[in-house]
């Protein structure tokens, strides 16, 4: 992502509420709980986000990417 071009101006006004919807907050809480439970660590979560195919990555929202990554890790580890 760093150094790529073509993403337009920075949405500087998007500076308010941390979550746009309830489900985003639940995804955040799930990621924290699963890290605390030792299911994955932060690096594994980021790795799973980075493994999302570019076309999906670029069309998904921030917390959709987290959701996809959590689902991927749980499936790979057979943990839930």
């Amino acid at each position, binding site marked *: *992502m760093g*150094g790529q071009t073509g*993403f337009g101006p920075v*949405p500087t006004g998007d500076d*308010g509420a941390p979550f746009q919807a309830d489900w985003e907050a639940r995804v955040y809480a799930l990621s*924290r709980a699963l890290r605390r439970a030792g299911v994955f660590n932060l690096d594994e979560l980021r790795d799973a986000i980075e493994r999302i195919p570019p076309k999906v990555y670029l069309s998904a929202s921030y917390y959709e990417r987290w959701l996809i990554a959590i689902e991927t890790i749980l499936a790979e580890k057979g943990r839930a």
Partner: protein
Amino acid sequence: MSHDELPVAARVRRLEERVIAAGLTTGDELDALLDELLDGASPVNGARMVARAWTDPDYREALLADANTAAGSLGFATNGYRLCAVENTPTLHNVVVCTLCSCYPVTLLGPSPGWYRSFAYRSRVVREPRAVLAEFGLRLPDEVEIVVWDASAETRYLVVPRRPEGELPEEELAARVTRKGLIGTSAV
């Protein structure tokens, strides 16, 4: 309907039910983790550290030497990563990004703003920081060098902005410090 086609909110509910059924968390724990973020994590915390550094030379020195300990001395937890405080000067301006995702010291800055997570900020601030800062309304003279820090899960940054002119008490100074100031996309 396949799993991927479910509306996202329903998909999250299903995931949450599965994780709870597997005994990995509880509804109460999820609520508590969210409250911790929304009630405890705030740029007010980072602002207190900066205002203390502006008014107490010993604290400033301690902050620049070991920011985790300096945060802890004011009661703020920064667990699991190294915190670096980077100080703006008349000739140097610091700005922070996480090009990979959105790492930053959430206890001290509050939940990350949408612009910090945006593709445009993450991709461009490392290539053309001066232009990106201008989009935030921060126009720096050409002679001011800009240093861009790329945060990671292991190392995260807190910008110490330049102190505003005038003799103000610590509390009033702290009230001037914004989240953008602590990330480096605005001056104080």
